[in-house]
């Protein structure tokens, strides 16, 4: 039975891989296929009749079965990215309803990482500490249901950690580390609780003949130990992998910024760099044209899956979202890179800076698709890093054009009618330049006729100075909240401390 199910899922997966490879430039990697196959195999093997029989007689074997199911099979299956495949492999006619289902409000709520974490931990504690476990041992139907529940919550739990595939819950690496870290004490404590119990928790095992020839209590202690040690070890490995992924992601991002910066010689004179840019920009563009076609195709697929339900087909817009005709590469890149799009609630809520939901390749593909379908609009600005002379000009431009909304320190401000000018600290240099050129939301747009390229470089440089806190020689900047924070500190820490002193040296009567 379980083998049939396993085989069936492998066949469906293989069909999906073939369909994907036929449709897309980049084939599914061998590793991805191998992970999925390994995951399904683990499920099939541990749930196979001989192992199941063993688990029925020995708590330790049963624990090993559960651990393999929830901590090995689940992440392996997810590394195979089956959900992403479900979106990219079938024709849009089938993929679109799937995408819509994934955006369903209920699905979105139920897949929130916090809920997934609670479900995983909750199922783990309640099954072991309630009559459910004993019931599962006695009744086969309950047992199958329990295993399905374990696998389902484990898949939900591991999904944000693995971080591959479509998601409506962007989950940063730091959050992932915390998420895993917080599970470690759960498995450890439950394992220890089982280990330290002085009596057999599940009477079923007293009746069963132990296959390893040890007493039911000793078997139970071994089960507790394996949960404690194996659970912690696997989580520790997961921690290392998440950290490694974080580092890799960061260096990729840095590499991308570097290539953009290298496009213009650093420290050159304004005239020279403009001349070089004028010479090289067209030729660089023609060199890219060849690889562009596939990128555009990939971008269109992505657009149709993730964007078209609001922005309409062929970028034409819809009642709930503006058309994207002629918006330019900078606009698309800015909204996607700052995670403002795809928006969950596109209506009146101002989108804020979040981790991007697409990979860098996917963003590039979408940019390519939008600009190919509807040319024009601002290109992605290239920001050069000029000397300090330009900082003065940058400060002047910032004071005249930016600080009235974003604040003198770039701390952000509210601009009325529910809009806020966000703090500038999270944006990259390129993103700041893109925002200036494209004017996202209520922000005015500063085109090349208003701010020349050198003006742009200058103001971005000044924003970078504000971002890196090079301007705080006076100590802690109190979140750059100005007199508001200063007054608060004066009352609470200044007068508060001194009132504490006079309470000490004075009397109460």
């Amino acid at each position: 039975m379980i083998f049939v199910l396993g085989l069936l899922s492998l066949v469906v997966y293989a069909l999906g891989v073939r369909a994907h490879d036929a449709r897309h430039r980049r084939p599914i990697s061998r590793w991805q296929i191998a992970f999925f196959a390994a995951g399904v195999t683990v499920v099939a093997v541990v749930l196979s009749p001989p192992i199941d029989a063993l688990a029925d007689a020995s708590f330790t074997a049963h624990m090993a079965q559960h651990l393999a199911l929830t901590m090995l099979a689940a992440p392996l299956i997810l590394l195979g990215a089956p959900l992403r495949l479900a979106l990219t492999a079938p024709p849009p006619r089938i993929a679109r309803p799937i995408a819509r289902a994934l955006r369903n409000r209920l699905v979105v709520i139920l897949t929130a990482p916090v809920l997934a974490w609670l479900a995983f931990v909750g199922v783990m504690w309640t099954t072991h500490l309630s009559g459910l476990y004993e019931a599962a041992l006695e009744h086969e139907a309950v047992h199958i249901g329990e295993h399905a529940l374990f696998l389902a919550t484990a898949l939900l739990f591991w999904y944000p950690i693995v971080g591959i595939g479509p998601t409506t819950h962007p989950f940063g690496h730091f959050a992932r580390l915390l998420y895993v870290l917080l599970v470690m004490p759960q498995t450890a404590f439950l394992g220890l609780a089982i280990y330290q119990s002085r009596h057999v928790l599940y009477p079923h095992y007293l009746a069963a003949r132990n296959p390893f020839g040890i007493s039911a209590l000793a078997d139970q202690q071994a089960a507790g130990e394996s949960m404690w040690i194996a659970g912690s070890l696997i989580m520790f490995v997961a921690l290392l992998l998440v950290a490694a992924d974080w580092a890799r992601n960061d260096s990729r991002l840095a590499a991308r910024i570097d290539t953009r910066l290298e496009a213009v010689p650093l420290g050159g004179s304004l005239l020279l760099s403009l001349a070089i840019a004028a010479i090289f920009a067209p030729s660089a563009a023609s060199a890219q044209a060849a690889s562009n076609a596939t990128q555009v195709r990939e971008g269109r697929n992505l657009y149709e899956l993730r964007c078209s339900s609001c922005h309409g087909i062929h970028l034409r817009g819809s009642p709930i979202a503006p058309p994207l005709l002629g918006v330019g590469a900078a606009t698309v890149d800015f909204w996607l890179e700052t995670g403002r799009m795809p928006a969950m609630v596109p209506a009146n809520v101002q989108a804020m800076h979040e981790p991007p939901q697409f990979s860098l390749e996917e963003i590039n593909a979408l940019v390519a698709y939008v600009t190919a379908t509807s040319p024009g609009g601002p290109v992605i600005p290239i920001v050069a890093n000029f000397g300090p002379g330009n900082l003065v000009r940058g400060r002047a431009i910032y004071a005249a054009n930016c600080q009235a909304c974003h604040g003198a320190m770039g701390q952000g401000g509210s601009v009325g009618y529910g809009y806020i000018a966000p703090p500038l600290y999270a944006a990259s240099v390129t993103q700041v330049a893109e925002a200036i050129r494209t004017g996202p939301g209520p922000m005015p747009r500063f085109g090349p006729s208003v701010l020349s390229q050198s003006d742009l470089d200058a103001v971005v440089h000044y924003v970078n100075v504000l971002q890196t806190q090079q301007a705080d020689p006076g100590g802690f900047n109190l979140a750059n909240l100005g007199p508001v924070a200063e007054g608060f500190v004066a009352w609470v820490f200044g007068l508060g401390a001194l009132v504490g002193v006079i309470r000490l040296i004075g009397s109460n009567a």
Partner: protein
Amino acid sequence: MIAKLMLWLDDRLGTSSFTSRAFRKAFPDHWSFMLGEIALYSFASLLATGIFLGLLFDASDTHQIYHGPYAPLVGVSVSGAYASTMRISFETQAGLMIRQIHHWSALLFCAAIVTHMARIFFTGAFRKPREINWIIGLTLLLLALGAGFTGYSLPDDLLSGTGLRIAASIAMTIPFVGVWIESLFFGGPFPAPQITGRLFFTHVFLLPSLIVGLIAVHMAILWHQKHTQFRGPERTESNVVGSPLWPNYALKSLGLGFASFAVVVILGGFFQINPIWQYGPYDPSLVASPAQPDWYVGWLDGALRLGLPIAVHIFGHTIPAAFLPGIVFPLVAFTLLYLWPWIERWITKDDRAHNLLDMPRDVPWRTATGAAILAFFLVTTLAASDDVQARLIAIPVETLTRVYQGLGIALPILAWFAVFQLCRELQARAIQRAMKDPRIVEYVRSPEGGFDEQQPTSVT
């Protein structure tokens, strides 16, 4: 050594009879009597750091090219005031720290005065014979506010310049004479070139002299009238129970002084305040935003933000909407506070002198009224940063302003009734506690004519 000095002084000035009496003067030990001293020591710190800053500050509006170490401003034309403040901050040994200590001391000075005043108000210490000191104290608060405002306006940066422009605009809202009054203070329509010199004179000479003088009078009157005290065993209207000035109280106070200096030095050394290099030099074509005044002016700024946009037209004259929150509100509020001792006497018909203090709970209506006044000032102060709050909690600033407008009406009323009720409950509980005292018994006369001793049963 000290004894020798005392003898030397006594031989020439005959001081010993005064000092020996003074050293034995009794100071009440209750902690709340030291709030005023925190203000005093903050003022001492302000004077010490202010002398340093005053020697290095250049109160000129003449523009010059900035050539300091702060890169983003190199080559920019700035006023002498701004340039010298930048020089103090970046090129003077410990200059930035002294500047920051000065500013933190000012915030602490005003906070301590307000807290001290609240103590005086809620315990009824302003009653006869101390009305004069109440008036002097209130005047000191106003002078402190003025010194703070003129002080942070001196550097001629964009933030304080925005504040000055608001002040000039408020002055102009006064009917018929507003423009003249604005010119009287600013020397012409804003931005007038003489303003920094006038601010400097006001900030370093006029206001400090007045503050020093009034502090002296304040303390002389205090010395002459002697301290108030809370009720307690052996405390009457005609004595003062406490520790002698020397050595007990003087050493305590000295310790408090050191603690105050420590607090402002820690704040000044570790917490950046008023980074004028980030605000940039004042430019009349720009406006700082989000812009808040220092906290003690916040109530005025907040009132302006909450004021309704209703302009009145009479006799061909326009009275702008800002007149009501900007001029009438502070005038009414401070007149009310100045007259409070007489208002209270008019209500209570109590004309006696009081040296024993009230517990706040024992005069519920006064405590409730004070709480309502504080609540109103709290709302206006908080409203002054509504734009910052709107950003932090991500709700429209218009909504928040409406909320504060509502709170400005509701919170004082709510505070009045809540505090009134609270005082009554505390009173009842105090009586209850006293009734449980085993020394208190009730005598009940029996029908036979005898008396039975029993614990009190009910309290009304």
